[in-house]
């Protein structure tokens, strides 16, 4: 019997510990490729997280590495002076990614050897820290800079030294530390490495850093540089870079991804599953948001939209459909906001549900996210024949044909409410628009075709 092809999926902070989004995509990918074996290599912020998915039978191994933990070195670097010379060289080469060379670093750094202390004990490492401080942070306390530098670099050292499971193909589902692990795997194991970016990791982190009040001064630039550089390394070492839509592909190329390696494979949905939905009219006007109750989905803007719309359309009813347990504090805030705006009769948090039931009667599906890649919920809504009003994030503009009647800037509750009211007031025009999109989704966004494509890519890469 021929040996089954094994794929190592490298995941950071998602599957199998987080529900929805990329995690849901990974689960479907594995389920839809039963002829392949999958090794799950996860990078987690903490130990002993609860697994939220039933791992499919073709998952043959799950290895988790805690990125914040100081792992014990079981081996020593082969030549510290040569290794540090290479690390220093690496720092100077980030602006010219074609010359990045992890090969030499990995050559001196066996698996399960971590540079947490060596990085500051070795004179070259210490000089890099102090020199970098003098260059970028001369007016702030050195200790603050040091600890920021240390925490950022220790995570990189964890990934450089970690033991990587064996597989035929390595597939990172983001850049960042997962991408770095993929690059290291390619060098250590001499196996192909591919990358799929749903969002743009470095851009997402940049937004978080800019919002975080505790990251100050040069530390912001340092973190942003680190994330950009991690993406550069991932792009440089990946044999294939897949993204969901053109805008993101261009951004990848801007950061140094070789154009010839890039490819677009959009996400798909289960067309058969959603085609079964029978639309029925229900009394009143029903608006739904399908997504987790978390800040990134900006549920508060959804509530503000509900306030504006409910004032104009008293029979309107709003449903937040999705798990509420990921950020309990945020969920409490949302409930308080609903109470204070006296919307308890208009808004309902229904929790995780079979969304088809809601797609059958919803008059509008709304998306208020401040960040998205290619939201599946829009594809699902169109497939079921439900109109959509959304913020202009990720691939939403393309999916909604750049039609400003249904679009608004993130946080713009007034404009979103206008879009909802437009749908309420113009059912015929909206129906035409939805029908067109229904056909487009059913033709181009069938996930079975998407996953088959991935199966072919894995086999091609293995063949190479």
């Amino acid at each position: 019997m021929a040996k089954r092809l094994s794929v190592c999926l490298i995941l950071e902070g998602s599957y199998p510990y987080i529900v929805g989004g990329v995690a849901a995509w990974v689960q479907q990918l594995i389920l839809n490729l039963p002829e392949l074996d999958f090794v799950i290599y996860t990078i987690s912020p903490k130990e002993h997280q609860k697994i939220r998915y039933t791992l499919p039978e073709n998952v043959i191994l799950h290895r988790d590495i805690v990125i914040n933990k100081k792992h014990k070195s079981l081996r020593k670097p082969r030549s510290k002076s040569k290794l540090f010379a290479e690390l220093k060289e690496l720092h100077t080469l980030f602006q010219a990614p074609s010359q990045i060379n992890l090969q030499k670093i990995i050559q001196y750094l066996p698996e399960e050897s971590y540079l947490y202390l060596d990085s500051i004990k070795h004179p070259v490492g210490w000089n890099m820290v102090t020199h970098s401080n003098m260059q970028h942070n001369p007016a702030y306390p050195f200790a603050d800079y040091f600890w920021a530098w240390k925490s950022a670099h220790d995570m990189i050292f964890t990934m450089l030294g970690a033991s990587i499971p064996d597989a035929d193909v390595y597939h990172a589902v983001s850049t960042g530390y997962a991408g770095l692990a993929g690059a290291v795997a390619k060098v250590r194991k001499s196996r192909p490495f591919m990358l799929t970016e749903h969002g743009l990791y470095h851009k997402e982190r940049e937004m978080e850093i800019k919002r975080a009040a505790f990251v100050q001064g040069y530390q912001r630039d340092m973190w942003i540089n680190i994330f950009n550089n991690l993406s550069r390394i991932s792009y440089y070492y990946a044999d294939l870079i897949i993204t969901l839509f053109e805008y993101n592909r261009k951004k990848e190329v801007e950061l140094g991804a070789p154009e010839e390696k890039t490819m677009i494979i959009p996400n798909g949905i289960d067309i058969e599953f959603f085609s079964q939905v029978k639309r029925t009219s229900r009394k009143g006007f029903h608006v739904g948001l399908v997504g987790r109750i978390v800040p990134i989905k900006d549920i508060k803007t959804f509530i503000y939209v509900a306030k504006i719309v409910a004032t104009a359309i008293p029979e309107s009813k709003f449903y937040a459909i999705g798990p509420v347990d990921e950020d309990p504090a945020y969920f409490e805030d949302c409930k308080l906001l609903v109470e204070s705006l006296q919307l308890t009769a208009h808004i309902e948090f229904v929790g995780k549900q079979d969304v088809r039931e809601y797609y059958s009667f919803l008059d509008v599906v709304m998306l208020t996210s401040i960040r998205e890649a290619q939201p599946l919920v829009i594809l699902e809504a169109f497939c079921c024949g439900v109109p959509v009003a959304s913020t202009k994030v990720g691939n939403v503009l393309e999916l909604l044909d750049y039609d400003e009647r249904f679009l608004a800037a993130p946080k713009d509750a007034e404009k979103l409410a206008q879009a909802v009211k437009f749908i309420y007031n113009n059912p015929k025009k909206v129906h035409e628009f939805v029908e067109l999109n229904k056909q487009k989704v059913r033709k181009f966004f069938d996930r079975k075709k998407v996953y088959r494509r991935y199966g072919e890519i894995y086999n091609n890469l293995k063949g190479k």
Partner: protein
Amino acid sequence: MAGIGFVLRRVIRQGGFFSLVKVALAGTIIVAGPWLLSIVGIFFITKYSFYLIGQSVVVFMGVVIYSYAFSLFLFGGIHYIFTRLVADYMYVKKKEKAGEALLLFSTGIVILASAVSLSVLFMLDLSKITYPLLFRVSGVVFFVSINLIWLLMIFISLLKKYFMIFIIYLSGMALAFGSITFLAGHFSVSGVLLGFAAGHLFIVISLYLLAFKEYRPRSFSIREHLPYFGKFKFLLLTGILYYWGMWIDKMVFWFAKGSPIANTFFRVYDVYDIPVYIANLTIIPGLIYFMIITETSFYKRLTEFLNKFNKSIYHKLQAIKYRLIANVKNGLREQCFFQGIFTVILILFAPLLVAADSGKIFIGGIKNILVFRIALGATFFQMLFLTIVIFLFYLQRFKLAFFSTLSFFLVNFAGSLIIVLWGNENTLGLSYLAAGIIGSTLGLRFLFTSAHKLDNAIFLIASGASLDNL
């Protein structure tokens, strides 16, 4: 001792000759009070006992010398760990834990010291001594007592009760005199040893009362304190090797060149023992200078560096660090100059001193002036070496302190063997001198490298590096 040093510095700043005398006197009592009292006490007790019981007092002398030498040789390393442990507890104001540590270490020392002294004293042929059992029991009590006194002195010095220690010591010596007067007539040399042991037992009990008055232990847990031996293993080894380094040449000469004490396997070598014994006393000015000036100003600079560590920009931090390094250089230079004056004067005028004494007091016991001069140089460098080792302790560089003391020990050991094999009487002490010079040179190199890397070492420790991994 940095704390008391600051107090004495404040007295000096008041100015005037009287303040200076007051500080010199207080400093002498603090750094060498019990030491001087012991030396003077032993000297007079020996003379007095010779008057009471005649020549048989030499066995008593043998027990006293060997007890002091071996108490440090065998258990000196433990003192370093004990000092660190108690200082840590006092810093975090855990009084009962410090008391527990004293109780635990005392128990350990009693068991070990009793075992060692029992084995040695029961191997001695005491057939020509009256009341041999009394002699043996008194010997064990004396050996255990002086080992406990070392611990208690460390503990109570950290409490900064120097004058109380001095008074207790004075009382203990007076009691020893009284007891010997009464007991020597009844039990001869066994009575002398019993009387001397009784005086020391009095010191032990008084010091315990003083210690436990403030630091009463609440429990007795070995598990809590034992990890210190692992964590500070290089501190322990440094302590052991320092005392070995100090005593190894004397021991080599005792057994290779010395003469036996009647009816025992104890041996002494007066040609070397007495010059070194006297030379050791000459470093008292250097020790006082270290306590009042060198250590306090180093401590001040180090504290400044540590206090500003988290809030300073890199340039500022480096400036403070280089001030600390300059301070170490100046401190060592000035201390060497100060002690050097005394050492050089004594080296130059050694023949006059010996001649003036003309054998009446112990300086007259010096038979070879060249050996005395070498010993003066050797103790000068030993003082410098000790200062460097203490600074390395402040910087948490226990491993480097260990390597320095290892060199000190090895050079002295190898050198003394070479002297035994190929040297003559005029080369005695050269190994001790060479050990001090080499140990200090190596220690200085380690010290300045460590001082330059101080910021790096602090970050390493804060990042989880063990002290051995610096």
